């Protein structure tokens, strides 16, 4: 017979609604702030757009 320990365990466990819970991850805003803080990127941020003009398309953080 096929190995089936995991399948049988899943079937025998009490039904849980855990799949609905958010995981306990850290705050994304904090992560973004942490990864970008202290950097002064002075590169040209203009991007070529489909009308042939270059524009800065940022929120300027």
């Amino acid at each position, binding site marked *: 017979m096929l190995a089936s320990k995991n399948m049988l365990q899943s079937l025998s466990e009490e039904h849980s*609604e855990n799949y*609905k*819970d*958010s*995981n*306990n*991850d*850290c*705050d*994304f*805003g*904090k*992560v*973004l*702030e*942490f*990864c*970008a*803080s*202290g*950097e002064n990127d002075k*590169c040209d*941020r203009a*991007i*070529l*757009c*489909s*009308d*042939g*003009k270059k*524009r800065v*398309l*940022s*929120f*300027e*953080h």
Partner: protein
Amino acid sequence: MRNYRPSETYKRLYDYIIEDLLIQICNSDMGYCVRFDADSEPIPYIIGEKFEDYKNKALYNMSGERLDRHKLASCICGAVIEAKPLVNVKGRKIKKNANEILALAVGLNVIKFFMIYDLLKDKEDSYCREARTYLKEHFDMQFPSLNDNICDTQEYRKNMENALFWSHHMCEMLKKECFHFDIWAYAKLFYHLELYNRPFISEAYHAFKEQEKSA
């Protein structure tokens, strides 16, 4: 047009990840530029609105209010695919799945930022800044190589880009059944790619420490 107001978090996500990648692509002289239509909202807002839609879809099925990193990566990946920010410069040919390639890179960079945060959040400040810059610039998220493949004839990365392309692009063009972007399935793929990349980010961090020692 809805009354969409981007959150501070989305503004950072756009400025630090999406815009950075768009600049690199459009400055690479490969014939890419960003879609611009004077009658519609600018592309950062279009992506942001779609990101909100995806997040709301995901949160609707959850009891909490915070999406974890893999669901966030999946939501922004789906949003970029739908927004299709990349188009060709007049007269130039570009890859059909360019937006899916960008979308995957955006999602993976979300994961990479979290991995950098996990690794460095408790480190001393000045050292942390150097390490963070080093990892952002030198550590590129990896995919299983062709040698790791089981029965595929092309690389994992290409398979994933194509899967994203076929899930929600060809349906429009060919009027075929849409497989829709599956937030949960792609969140799980981002989860596995984070696991796969743990040793690689450790290696990159080790290389940084060695470089600091010899400086």
